[in-house]
């Protein structure tokens, strides 16, 4: 319970900070400075900022899309804390719906609902099936970089996205679809956006001193209508 409470506190803190910052910028705790301890300062210091908006095929902003640089290679770790993260299941939805974690992170999948869930992923990066469970659930360690889409085998509408990265250059879009990635090494990079309801899209961005704008467009597949059952 202690561990769980700590995770919850960390997530809450991150959320509070994020909303205060107004940008969904994920400066992972595992990479670089810890949140609230100089992240913004560091982000402003380099000035090598890639920012933009992710929109769908109709031009609407896409929330909870993960934007990262897939070919940036491994960056040196800046911390030795065991990497841990949580993707909760609340009201038949994964919370948060999108996560970015460094390679080696163990993600726990607790079930906060009163019904069973059966969390699985058939992704090439990490294939796992936790089976039916309530409460604590299992934990999965993601030891290879890549995109992992997570579903519940008994609830069609439940879907989550975890992007495993080996560098800090990643962000999750905010309610307006905006993202910002800081401290990006200078040079040309592939930049990729992905969402639980999209197969993703990849573009290129040339990063120099100062901010670079990189808007991305995703083809979204409309999610199936919510599953009808007696759960409330």
């Amino acid at each position, binding site marked *: 319970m202690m561990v769980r409470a700590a995770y919850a506190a960390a997530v809450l803190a991150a959320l509070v900070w994020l909303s205060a910052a107004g940008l969904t910028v994920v400066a992972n705790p595992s990479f670089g400075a810890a949140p609230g301890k100089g992240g913004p300062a560091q982000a402003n210091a380099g000035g090598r900022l890639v920012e933009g908006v992710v929109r769908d095929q109709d031009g609407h902003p896409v929330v909870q899309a993960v934007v990262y640089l897939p070919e940036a290679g491994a960056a040196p770790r800046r911390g030795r804390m065991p990497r841990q993260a949580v993707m909760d299941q609340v009201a038949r939805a994964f919370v948060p719906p999108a996560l970015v974690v460094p390679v080696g992170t163990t993600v726990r999948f607790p079930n906060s609902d009163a019904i069973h869930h059966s969390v699985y992923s058939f992704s090439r990066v990490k294939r796992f099936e936790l089976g039916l469970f309530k409460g604590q659930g299992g934990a999965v360690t993601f030891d290879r970089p890549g995109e992992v889409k997570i579903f519940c085998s008994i609830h069609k509408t439940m879907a989550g996205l975890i992007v495993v990265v080996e560098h800090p250059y990643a962000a999750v879009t905010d309610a307006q679809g905006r993202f910002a990635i800081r401290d990006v090494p200078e040079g040309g990079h592939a930049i990729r956006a992905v969402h639980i309801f999209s197969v993703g899209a990849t573009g290129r961005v040339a990063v120099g001193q100062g901010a670079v704008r990189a808007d991305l467009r995703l083809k*979204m597949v409309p999610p199936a209508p919510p599953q009808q059952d007696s759960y409330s």
Partner: protein
Amino acid sequence: MAISLRAKILISSLGLVLVLLVASSYVLNILVKGQVRRTAEADLRRTRTVFDANRAQRARHLVADSRLLSADYAFRSLVSTYDPATLRSAAQGFRQTLGSDLLAVTDERGILLAWTDDPGRAGANVADTPWAAAALAGDEATDLLAEEGAIVQLTAVPVRPAAVAPDVMGVLVLGFRLDDRVARELKQLTDSEVSLAVGGRLVASTLAPAAREALGRRLPEVRAARGPLDLDLGGERFLGLVAPLAPAGPAAGSTAPQGPGAAPVAIILHSLEPALAGLRRLQRGLWLVGLTAAGLAVGASVLISKGITEPVRHLVEGTRRVAAGVYDAPIVVRARDELGTLAEAFNGMMTDLLDRERVRSLMQKVVSKEIAEEMLRGPVELGGEEREATILFCDIRDFTAWTEGMPPKALVRQLNAYLTAMAAAIDAQRGVVDKFIGDAVMALFGVPVPDPDHPAHAVAAAQAMVARLDALNAERGGAGLAPLRMGIGIATGTVVAGTMGSADRLNYTVVGDVVNLASRLEGLTKTYGAPIIISEATHARLAGRFGTRTLGEVEVKGKREAVRIFTVEPGPVGAGRPGGGS
């Protein structure tokens, strides 16, 4: 060359029936063959429609099965292992469960993980095939695979990690083979022969081995045909239709060979034999009926012609009998038709002729032949005409004394012998016995048959009568009978000749002063002792051809002056005969 009525009727009726028979047979043949062909074409089109519908339905079932299987959690989990050996072992089980002929799985890059027909294909990249490309892009696709002599109808659907996921983690392929079994099922449904070909090779057929082989040989020619084609395969006639096979469903393109001569086709054949056998049965029935009708026509025409020719023959015979003068044998015709009427009329005519002949013969006995002919020639009318004629009267001298004490039969016999002889003499000179008055004879010359030389004929007749009486008397002398003596008076002049009497009873006769004169001259023979006395008018017309002598003059009633009378010398008849005496 004359053709008998019977033959004409027979030939025409038989010819009519045969022409009708041949014509109906021909028309029947044309109509039925056309109908057979139209029906066969309709059958072919229906078979094609059924085949397409059948394949479309199978494709829908395959898609439905594919969707169900691809959405199955266990199947998704299985695919996510991306382990060819595991997938291969599991795929056979799924294929059997679904009852499909083929089940294949690729990964998200289009690399084959399992292919139930050919495990060796695992690892091959099929991402470039239209169906795999479509499925990897998230769409469902159908296609026709034509390889290794088989046509496979397949469907490809994407496999996703979850229903809501846009990501494709692999492709599921299900297929059914278009083979002999499919062809047989189609044949059961449509009764058409179905063959399937790829390129120059038959891959399935419901045909019997011989016909199948024949079709295989003629495949290029058959494939090139446009529209329905007539085929003779192994001695059986077919109507055929070549239908290109298209993927039954949404196709992104096709991996099957394309173009004429290569693309997979269905060759649908409909045997014409059953229908043609039906036509032959129909024709046989028609000919049977037709020939029976011809036989009946022959019989009927024989009967009819007999019904015509028999009465005609009787009529001909009757006519011949009539021509021969036989009137009392009526012909027998039972027919109640026109011929019966004709025969009745003929018989009526014969009766009339018979009656007339009876009358004629009777009249010829009662009256002279010439008068009878005259009377029978036309309607008998009262009245007469003025003609010039010579009248002869003849009477037996002392008749009353002669007949006294003689038995009546002997009298009649002797009288008849006398009168017959006299009549014969008159006849011989174109005279006509007008009437017998007891022993007297009144004869006419120049009427009713005109005779320009009637006075001479009358005188010649008188001479002949005298001669005949002499001959008769010679016979009588031989028989011990007394000789007969007679007187003959002849006068020439105008008389009124005609049929006279009442409406019921008529006589052809003449009246006039000349008749009285002749009678009076006959009476004068006693006074003058001459057997023949002729009037002046008669004498004037003889032109000296007879020896005559004047006897004197007599008073004649109705004449102011006395009339001279002459007697004729009883010279040889031949010297004075005028006109040859025929």
